[in-house]
């Protein structure tokens, strides 16, 4: 519960007052290569900075107040291949530079491995990483979770429709072992009030999925898998509105705008409203033959935020941001017919941030930030009756409550103050345009307090079962060094992360219930992790990668202090650790002007030790203990190809074999009954394939049409360790097919997408006993306007 840390963007504690930089201006025009016509809406960005501009109706653009230095300028537009040019900006000078862009064949790829230059740069880093281009998915009626499902090596396991819980599975790691970042900031999504689905796709520039080794520049803990969501940084003029209508009462509305208020000052705002009834039918996994239509799974959420940015200080960008998220979710029963219980959350975030790129003559990038985050979340479950699925009421077991054996109306409050800094320094020797040595220092300082309360539960229990406050302070420092002795050909990144963690909490003291205020228990942990990664560019568009990491995951507050109800305190729980090794090959070869193939294959081994597991305790209690040891080995492969000028195909397959490698039962000499058995309840073989066709100008000039079909496959896996030939508790093999059509009128920025997911209405579940929707229809309308006016 304390693990609701998250959010937003980098920030500032103090604003150094410095001299204004010496600046220049870049002007130019962007046109279509084949027709010579202007490309309004095309954008020009200075790579590695937030500077950029959008082309007007005549294709012209201008970027002002560009600090003197050498940059890479990138021009891009949906449906066109980005183009990059090196430029040198001098003080008080204006540079004229024009771009011509060529239409791409796979212009609406979902999981982009070519993508824009920054995404391509990340992909060519030494790490095993998949990059999803959010803007190229934004036209579809997908949630972020669903988008991530399309990344190679990623499984998103859901319990229901929109608003339901999601489990990220990357390289066999799940839950708290997968770290979530938003713009590089640790964003724990384990709490009740925030999921990645809170972020509309329209607000996402890209998502980076690190598999096996996480770069040290990310200042968080985890065991070798991470998802980093990069929020868009719209330029001076930007407006985006989208509406999605989907099956089972799904409505999602999103509008985002950024408008210049004055020279160098911008105001942005975003409102996002989601609602869904999730009223799909499912066959009860508990009573065979019983078909239930969900009638208590309604989800409501509103996210609104505003940001004020200025580039008129020493920093390139200083921003003040605030956001509020309110949500309410009814709880659908699977085993019982829940009719009243619901969860709710209200979250507020205030952000102050500053970023300066290219200081000290282009050598130093600085990002500073502070976040104040508060949330109130709770579960209301006070009904005096429960219901059978035929509607017949019967009394709640202990008088009130549909879910547990005690009524609850909780009000859990979390307050988090975070300060973060990131510094990147490029040393002097340069090979080509690439510095030989680059160092990065990242730190994240957190102070958090958690104050749970549930007077209803206390009253029902006749004593305190809820008010167990906790406080936590932590510091994570990441230091990495990038070495490129031969320019782009070879990259070596060595990194280290240090963790200092101090936590104090009030333990659940259920074995001495008369103690109203048990003395607090404390945990102080100092530990380190390290990583090393290399990438070598071979001939013929082939890259070789290898990386290794010693990763750490710190215990959560619940793991340390219990939950006040049934989980006892375990203040001595140690961090989990894992030694991860990855190797891979990556190919990108152009066969002709219309044909291109990209492929990637990688292998990995993860050795997890001191895994924290919940174990049965005394008198109904449980407690977390360092028990598990797991080895995860596997491979994944992905191939993508532009087969013709209009046909694109892609396929991926992931095999991840997680084995229990604890040879003996803990504390004994007895052989473990599950030694070397595959871990249950984890997908171990899955893949996807997609074919899409593109037609340009079919419905008029500057229109683009895309027809796609995509299939997903997950092999059956067992709910429990596979020890018997008669095991029936399985998560069945799933094969689903999706079809869609996306039509874009680029001149007007209008996109209309219609799609059907799970066309065959196959029975799907990827969490045991949690049936998912069958066939789903979605229709999305999106309007985007880019330009200073």
């Amino acid at each position, binding site marked *: 519960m304390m693990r609701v840390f998250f959010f937003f963007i980098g920030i500032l504690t103090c604003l150094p007052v410095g001299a204004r930089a010496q600046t220049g201006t870049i002007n130019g025009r962007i046109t279509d290569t084949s027709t010579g016509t202007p490309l309004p809406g095309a954008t020009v960005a200075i790579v590695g900075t937030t500077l950029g501009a959008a082309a007007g109706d005549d294709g012209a653009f201008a970027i002002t107040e560009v600090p003197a230095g050498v940059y890479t300028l990138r021009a891009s537009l949906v449906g066109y291949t980005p183009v990059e040019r090196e430029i040198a900006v001098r003080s008080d000078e204006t540079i004229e530079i024009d771009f011509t862009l060529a239409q791409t064949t796979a212009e609406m790829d979902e999981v982009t491995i070519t993508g824009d230059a920054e995404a391509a740069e990340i992909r060519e880093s030494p790490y095993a990483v998949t990059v999803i281009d959010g803007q190229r998915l934004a036209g579809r009626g997908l949630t972020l979770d669903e988008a991530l499902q399309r990344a190679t090596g990623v499984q998103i396991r859901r319990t229901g429709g929109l608003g339901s819980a999601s489990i990220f599975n990357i390289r066999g790691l799940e839950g708290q072992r997968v770290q979530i970042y938003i713009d590089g900031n640790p964003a724990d999504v384990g709490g009740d009030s925030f999921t990645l689905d809170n972020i509309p796709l329209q607000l996402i520039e890209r998502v980076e999925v690190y598999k096996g080794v996480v770069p040290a520049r990310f200042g968080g803990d985890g065991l070798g898998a991470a998802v980093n969501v990069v929020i868009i940084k719209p330029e001076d003029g930007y407006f985006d509105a989208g509406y999605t209508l989907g099956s089972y009462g799904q409505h999602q509305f999103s509008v985002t705008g950024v408008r210049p208020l004055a020279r160098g000052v911008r105001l942005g705002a975003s409102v996002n409203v989601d609602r869904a009834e999730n009223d799909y039918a499912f066959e009860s996994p*508990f*009573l065979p033959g019983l078909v239930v239509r969900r009638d208590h799974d309604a989800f409501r959420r509103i996210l609104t935020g505003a940001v004020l940015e200025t580039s008129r200080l020493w920093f390139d960008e200083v921003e003040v941001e605030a956001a509020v998220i309110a949500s309410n979710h009814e709880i659908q*029963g699977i*085993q*019982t*017919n829940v009719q009243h219980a619901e969860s709710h959350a209200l979250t507020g975030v205030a952000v102050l941030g500053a970023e300066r790129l290219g200081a000290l003559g282009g050598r130093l990038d600085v990002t500073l930030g502070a976040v104040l985050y508060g949330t109130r979340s709770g*579960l209301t479950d006070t009904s005096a009756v*429960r219901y059978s699925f035929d509607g017949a009421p*019967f*009394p*709640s*077991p*202990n*008088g*009130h409550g549909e*879910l*547990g*054996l*005690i009524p609850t109306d909780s009000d859990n409050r979390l307050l988090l103050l975070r300060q973060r800094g990131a510094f990147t320094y490029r040393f002097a020797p340069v090979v080509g345009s690439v510095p030989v040595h680059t160092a990065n220092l990242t730190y994240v300082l957190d102070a958090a307090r958690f104050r749970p309360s549930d007077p209803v539960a206390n*009253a*029902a*229990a*006749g004593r305190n079962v809820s008010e167990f406050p906790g406080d936590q302070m932590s510091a994570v420092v990441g230091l990495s060094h990038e070495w490129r002795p031969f320019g782009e050909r070879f990259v070596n990144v060595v990194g280290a992360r240090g963790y200092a963690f101090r936590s104090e909490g009030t333990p659940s003291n*259920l*074995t001495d219930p008369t103690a109203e205020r048990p003395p607090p228990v404390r945990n102080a942990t100092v530990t380190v992790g390290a990583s090393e990664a290399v990438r070598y560019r071979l001939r013929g568009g082939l890259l070789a990668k290898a990386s290794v990491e010693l990763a750490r995951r710190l215990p959560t507050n619940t793991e340390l202090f219990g*939950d006040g*109800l*049934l*989980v006892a305190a375990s203040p001595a729980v140690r961090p989990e650790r894992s030694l991860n090794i990855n190797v891979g090959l990556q190919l990108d070869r152009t066969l002709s002007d219309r044909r291109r193939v990209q492929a990637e294959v990688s292998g990995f081994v993860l050795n997890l030790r001191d*895994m924290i*597991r919940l*174990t*049965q*305790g*005394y*008198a*109904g*209690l*449980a*407690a977390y*203990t360092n028990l598990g040891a*797991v080895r995860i080995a596997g491979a994944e492969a992905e191939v993508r190809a532009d087969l013709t000028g209009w046909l694109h195909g892609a396929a991926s397959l992931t095999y991840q074999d997680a084995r229990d490698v604890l040879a003996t*039962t*803990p*504390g*004994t*000499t*007895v052989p473990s*009954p599950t030694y070397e058995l595959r871990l*249950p*309840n984890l997908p171990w073989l899955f893949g996807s394939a997609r074919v899409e066709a593109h037609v340009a100008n079919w419905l008029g000039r500057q229109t683009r049409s895309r027809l796609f079909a995509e299939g997903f496959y997950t092999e059956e896996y067992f*709910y*429990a*360790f596979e*020890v*018997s*030939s*008669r*095991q029936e*508790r399985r998560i069945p093999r799933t094969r689903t097919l999706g079809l869609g059509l996306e039509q874009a009128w680029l001149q007007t920025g209008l996109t209309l997408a219609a799609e059907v997911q799970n066309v065959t209405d196959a029975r799907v579940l990827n969490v045991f006993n949690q049936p998912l929707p069958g066939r789903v229809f979605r229709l999305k309308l999106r309007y985007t306007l880019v330009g200073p006016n």
Partner: protein
Amino acid sequence: MKNYLSRLALASLLLAPLLVLSACDSNDPGDEQARGNLLLITGIPDQSGVNGSSFVQTVSLDQQSVTNADAYEQTFFPYSSIYGDQVIITQGSGGDQAVRYVRGDDGELTEGGRLNLPPGGFGASVVFASPTKAYVAVVFAGQIVVFNPQTMTQTGVIDLTTLGIARNPSNPEDRNPEPAVMTIRDGKLYVGLQQLVTQFSSADGADVAVFDVATDTFERVIHDDRASGPGRYGYNQTMFVDEVGDLYVHCVASFGAVPGQKAGFLRIRQGATEFDPTYFVNTTDANVDVPGGQIGILNGLGYGGGGELYGIAQVPALQGNPPNYATDRAFQAVRVRLATGAIEVLPLPPGNGIATGVTFIEDQVIFGLSTASGVGLYTYDPATGQASDGPVVTTQGDPTAVLAFEE
């Protein structure tokens, strides 16, 4: 989250084997070497530590080692009852069915029907009135479902929700008495009522409801203030009848979570309609020859005849901090002499809190234990006082239940 935790609590409340009333008759040993004269249930948790599956099969003592290769899968902590060659498994919080297995001539089990129980009701204790009539306590529904075990069809329901009123001081609207354990004596169905206030705490005092088996009608509630929490869900042998017809019930006293409540054994004598006011074996305050001198709950009980009760006693002094059912070897096999209340430690190594099987075969007491040196079925010979040095049958997973078939 709370739903999950509630399940966790309930599962962990109920870790001992379910012994059928007559399964403890050690006077008719039958052919103990025949294959499949013991019902064995082993539990194997998954990587979360609190979920997983259990595996149901028949074994015999001549098998030195058994795996679960051909066992039936069930919920993580199911409850089991035997009647002749029939086995009824109830699924606790993990499922809403009672599943019947039949032991064939080859000693192997085959599935023989399923009975749907109220959703989320927590089916637990099963007792048999006849070959065609049995009762299953559905704890959270506050019901006893009457069914025909041969056809696995429901024939009636006994509603208990009038018996829970006014027994929960924190919540007067609590109408569910939580039927925990049942036994039949002289045509009367005795139902131990846990009268839970929260997940693991019972109201003070012990209530046992009495019903007429012929008509399934309620007769009365027998109450006693000396102990609390009569019986454990699904653990039939926590209420049993001895050779002379005296009924004993083990009261678990909220597993020690409520100060002042006493655990131990109450008795209703043959022919009596109230608890015997002269009899209470107080295990909470007993002095036992274990580290620390005291015991907590008794996991896995089995009445061996002659006034001797065998069980596996929690030893608080051996527990870790925090206590851990899986890794603490803090449960010691003991014998309780019902006449005197004396509790003797048996020469077996302490095991964990998950392995809780106790049964009898050919004058041997069989313990399912998970000790530091072995996991499986251990034996104790009451005649000689000798115990096996290690498991005579090693098992794949902790034996959560072991029951002997009547031969």
